[in-house]
């Protein structure tokens, strides 16, 4: 009994410490005063200012498009790489896995500066493209990491059986192997998306003049203090994600029979 409530208090404390900063930020986004030290009254003006601020909106759209595009590209490349690697012998697999893991194990600043020097030596103009390329680079290992365990669970006989039953290799892959890999691919995509959203250091070194993502934009405001528009934007992003998650998790469960192909996948 006591243990139970102690556990509950402990969990409660953890949740409190995790969310208190976010709540503070949300409250401050309605603060009429620019400083966090003083409550100047309730206002929506930062939200209005946010939608007037082209620089922030541009940074937001850059961030989202880079995250989406890089996660999609990394998922494609990463999945293909996983399939190839899983078909290798033990020794070459170990070699390739350690190579693909480098961007993940390396300190971000090393990856960032290395990429910058690489782009420089090829004479590539810095801008949106270089950020995208670097994000794809560091996203690939995350996709490989989450798809790899799935390929280990694959039963090779199923694929062969599909071929025996007259499916082309293409059909056999998309109808038999791919559905089995899908959960891994999805989580790889989401992971890559998150990593890309979150990144500051690599973006900083590979971005060109005039192209900003949210993280670099926020960081440049450090000298003069973060502007409350950023609080407003963060509040909106937090709420959007929260609502999306609630919708995904609490929507009505569809009937099993209504889904075509359900019988097959249950085998």
């Amino acid at each position: 009994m006591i243990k139970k409530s102690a556990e509950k208090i402990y969990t409660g404390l953890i949740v409190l410490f995790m969310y208190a900063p976010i709540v503070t930020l949300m409250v401050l986004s309605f603060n009429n005063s620019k400083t966090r030290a003083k409550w100047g009254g309730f206002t929506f003006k930062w939200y209005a200012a946010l939608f007037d601020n082209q620089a922030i909106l541009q940074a937001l759209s850059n961030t989202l498009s880079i995250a989406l595009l890089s996660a999609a590209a990394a998922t494609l490349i990463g999945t293909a790489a996983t399939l190839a690697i899983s078909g290798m012998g033990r020794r070459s697999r170990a070699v390739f896995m350690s190579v693909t893991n480098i961007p993940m194990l390396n300190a971000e600043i090393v990856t960032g500066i290395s990429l910058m020097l690489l782009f420089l030596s090829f004479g590539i103009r810095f801008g949106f493209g270089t950020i995208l390329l670097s994000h794809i680079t560091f996203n690939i290992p995350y996709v490989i990491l989450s798809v790899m365990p799935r390929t280990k669970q694959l039963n090779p006989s199923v694929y062969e059986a599909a071929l025996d039953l007259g499916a082309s290799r293409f059909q056999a892959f998309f109808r038999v192997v791919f559905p089995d890999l899908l959960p891994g691919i999805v989580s790889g995509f989401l992971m890559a998306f998150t990593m890309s959203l979150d990144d500051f250091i690599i973006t900083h070194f590979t971005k060109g003049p005039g192209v900003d993502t949210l993280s670099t934009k926020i960081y440049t405001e450090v000298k003069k203090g973060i502007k409350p528009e950023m609080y407003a934007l963060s509040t909106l992003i937090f709420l959007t994600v929260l609502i999306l998650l609630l919708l995904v998790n609490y929507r009505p469960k569809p009937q099993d029979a209504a889904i075509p192909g359900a019988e097959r996948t249950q085998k």
Partner: protein
Amino acid sequence: MKRKTVWKKLVGLTAACCLLTGLLTGCGASDAGSAAGDNGEVIVYNWGEYIDPDTLEMFESETGIRVIYDEFETNEIMYPKVEAGASQYDVICPSDYMIQKMIDNDLLQELDFDNLPNAKANIGAQYWEQSEQFDPGNRYSVPYCWGTVGILYNKTMVDEPVDSWSILWNEKYADNILMQDSVRDAFMVALKLNGCSMNSMDPDELAAARDLLIEQKPLVQAYVIDQVRDKMIGNEAALGVIYSGEAIYTQRENPDLEYVIPKEGTNVWIDSWVIPKNAPNPENAEKFIDFMCRPDIALLNFEYITYSTPNDAARELIEDEDIRNSSIAFPDLSQYENLETFTYLGEEGDGLYNEMWKEVKSR
């Protein structure tokens, strides 16, 4: 069945994100690229939040030169990008010692002051003189913002008159003191208190300053950078070391705060416009710098940033008399002794300072 759900979730999320991105890019792109850009472009690299965005638009519509604007957060982060040539900038706004480092490493080009009539006419003589410390002969840089470093204190929490750095060692204010969390700024305080130059390279002087900082450490509430501002406004500390530009803003928010330049002298810092050697559009860069020195433009920027402007003609235009004659924003430099500006100490000097600072911080 389970796979289908995951798939659907993914499709839903992706669709939502695409929609959002589309909406934002749509409204972001619509008004760019109008009249501006007919006369080429100028790529500016400045501190974050260090310019009134309206002045950029005015520059674009008056000259037809498109401004590509980029921001950095510290001199140290700006330097490797410029040195590596990763991005080629036309105009950069580094601080004093960093300008010297860039001159030493042959990264800057000399300015042609015939193309900078506004700079010649409007920037006050004392700022050119101060700039000589890091840019001998005033050949490479045009001052943009400047200020001092001093003590911000709360009148209700401090009884005695504040006029010396030594009050930061007064045990009465234990746990109520905020120090700057950066090597040179922290050592400046200790070196000045000991009567030394803040650009000292003498190991004995530095060791004495280090010991002084270690002695002070138990009294310090926190080593911070930009939080000094908010903490002082919120009455969370009695004394803080702060840049003068923030003093005007903090006083506006909390009238109990007062700023002083200690009698032992302090750091006079200057951020100036420079043109790097590899600038793709040096003519446009000169036009940009000269535009920023126009009195009306400098005034707009002063009002936006609240950091002191070296532009005497702009100062004349300030309507609020209290600010125009404020001794915080525009102290008469000749009244103080031992005012200095940071100079670049070379790699060896940087190493020495960093080593000592580590010893202070790790105690």
